């Protein structure tokens, strides 16, 4: 039977009534360590970051801020993710890059929102013409509208970037995490395999592997990037798991009878995932530029798919007489890559302030 609380035992702990809790002493664990006066906010999705801790959402006493009545806006429990989100919302770099990325994702899904034309329709009579009313970016070599093609090109880049990142992150963190947790020969084998893939020069590999592919879809490119991208993630995941594995709370979980699977999923993974998210977000930008590079070289996406890389490639030879053909898709590509890399930086700062 629970006993009534006896204040005798609590001379050192300041007890405030519900709502006015001042956070615990010690406070060594708070990453970021923002001010304590943040308003109680309900669950908010972490934009850009692939996950917002489902292990928190699932808990019955999460996400009901109103339950702790009394006291104005009591700070709800703050873990790494709440702290990170708190930091991110106040980071102008994050807000700017997130807005750009939301916009890019929207036009990747619905290009018709801002471009009413047909990206395939060409009017040879107007080939390489400069800007005209209704065609602000001018025309390309085939007389197609550069604006419409630039807008439609977002789809290929975003699809390749997101799918390749998800694939590489999933494959890399599963393999790297298992290697880090179990160690031994499995770890050695996996690390050597990762080294082999590390050793393949990306462009050379792309020219060799992708030149035999005739499909014009994005999937061979996604597959190729995942194949060469997972070792980077798996190294990070492995290192992170090896570090977290040594912590006392993992020992404690084992001592108190948790199985390997449970220890790995519930106690190690949530604590080890932050560096993976950071690296994956930054990698997303580089994967997009990799897709453009491969398409530029003619081994990535192939016409009639609309891609910035393909357009840049066909414009490159015309740079002196029609520079607008090159500038618009190249500019769109740069902004996209920049946005993802900035987002990755902001996420890194929020999740691991020590790296700053």
């Amino acid at each position, binding site marked *: 039977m*629970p*006993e009534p*609380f*006896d204040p005798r*035992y*609590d*001379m*050192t*702990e300041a*007890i405030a009534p*519900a709502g006015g*809790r001042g*956070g*615990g*002493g*010690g*406070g*060594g*664990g*708070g990453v970021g360590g923002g001010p304590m006066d943040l308003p109680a906010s309900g669950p908010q999705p972490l934009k850009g970051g692939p996950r917002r*801790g489902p*292990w*928190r959402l699932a*808990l*019955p*006493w*999460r996400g009901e801020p109103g339950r*702790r009545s009394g006291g104005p806006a009591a700070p*709800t*429990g*703050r*873990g*790494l*993710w709440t702290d990170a989100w708190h930091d991110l919302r106040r980071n102008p770099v994050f807000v700017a890059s997130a807005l750009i990325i939301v916009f890019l994702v929207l036009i990747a899904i619905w290009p018709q929102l801002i471009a009413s034309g047909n990206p395939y329709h060409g009017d040879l009579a107007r080939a390489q013409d400069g800007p005209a009313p209704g065609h602000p970016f001018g025309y390309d070599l085939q007389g197609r509208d550069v604006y419409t093609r630039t807008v439609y090109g977002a789809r290929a880049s975003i699809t390749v970037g997101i799918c390749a990142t998800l694939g590489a992150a999933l494959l890399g963190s599963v393999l790297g995490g298992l290697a880090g947790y179990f160690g031994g020969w499995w770890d050695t084998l996996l690390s050597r395999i990762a080294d082999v893939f590390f050793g393949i020069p990306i462009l050379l590999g792309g020219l060799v592997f992708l030149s035999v592919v005739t499909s014009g879809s994005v999937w061979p490119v996604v597959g190729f990037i995942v194949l060469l991208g997972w070792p980077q993630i798996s190294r990070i995941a492995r290192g992170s798991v090896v570090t977290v594995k040594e*912590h*006392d*709370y993992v*020992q*404690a*979980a*084992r*001592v*108190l*009878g*948790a*199985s390997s699977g*449970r220890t790995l999923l*519930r*106690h190690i993974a*949530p*604590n080890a995932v932050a560096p993976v998210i950071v690296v994956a977000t930054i990698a997303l930008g580089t994967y997009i530029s990799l897709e453009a590079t491969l398409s530029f070289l003619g081994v990535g996406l192939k016409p009639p798919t609309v891609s910035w890389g393909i357009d840049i490639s066909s414009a490159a030879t015309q740079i002196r007489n029609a520079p607008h053909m090159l500038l618009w898709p190249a500019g769109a590509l740069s902004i996209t890559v920049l946005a993802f890399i900035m987002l990755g930086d902001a996420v890194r700062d929020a999740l691991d302030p020590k790296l700053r």
Partner: protein
Amino acid sequence: MAARLLDVRDLRVEFRTRDGIAEAVGGVSYAVDAGRTLAVLGESGSGKSVTAQAVMGILDSPPGRVTGGQVLFRGRDLLTMGAEERRRIRGAALAMIFQDALSALNPVLPVGAQLAEMYEVHRGMSRRDARRRAVELMDRVRIPAAGQRAGDYPHQFSGGMRQRIMIAMAMALEPDLIIADEPTTALDVTVQAQVMELLAELRREYAMGLVLITHDLGVVADVADTIAVMYAGRIVETAPVRDLYRRPAHPYTRGLLDSVPRVDDRGERLYAIKGAPPSPLALPSGCPFHPRCPRAQEVCRVERPPLYEVTADAGADGRTSACHFWKEELHA
């Protein structure tokens, strides 16, 4: 005689290091019965925590390795048991409290969820029931406003509160035996007393066995029934707590007792045992304590003393001492 709750017999643990094999535990035996408290006392590096890790089966291996001995829990050897069977015993019948509760609690999970996990894993309770039990448990270890604090994260609690949660976690399934590895070392003195009191009270109430690992003589005086003093990976003396404090039978124990600061000799220099504990890579010949021992003779350099039964005119049974001159020490 019925099987003892925990009976460690001649346990040996070694670590493979770059500089050679270090014998961290060199044949330790101790036993605890239900409802009793055994304090394992020793300096850092004396092997007291490694012994506990070997008992719990969480020794870092490699480099650590159990090379001999038995760990009998209710008469069954944990060391030869299958991994899955051992996992079921851990937590349910045999639990452990760590020194630093901040690092022993998962930083990304609310404490309530971590407590509830015990019931979900071992008892297969529904999440709702497990949560209710978790709050009861927090209440039991006197966390104020337990229902509300269940959703808080470990770093939001003070050191004493965190250690209570750690204790609650170990107590969750009402185990038969708890091993507490320096449970109060990370706490300040006033909180230490509260935590020890709580631990002693819970032990009485549930009639558990308790192995209390510590280097703090002040902590053990009130709560322990028996004390085992460890030095350089071996037990040098075991005795009921009162006898040990009154008449130690080993020069090392006497040295430890003399090192405790006293309120009445204010202003004097504190006593310290001269020298430093030996490296487990290069233990001295004979008695490992002889280089630091005020009583050392030639025989101590050559011959390792066995654990002598301390009996006869001492008037206390069940005492042992690993000193050639225990009689002289006892009557000193």
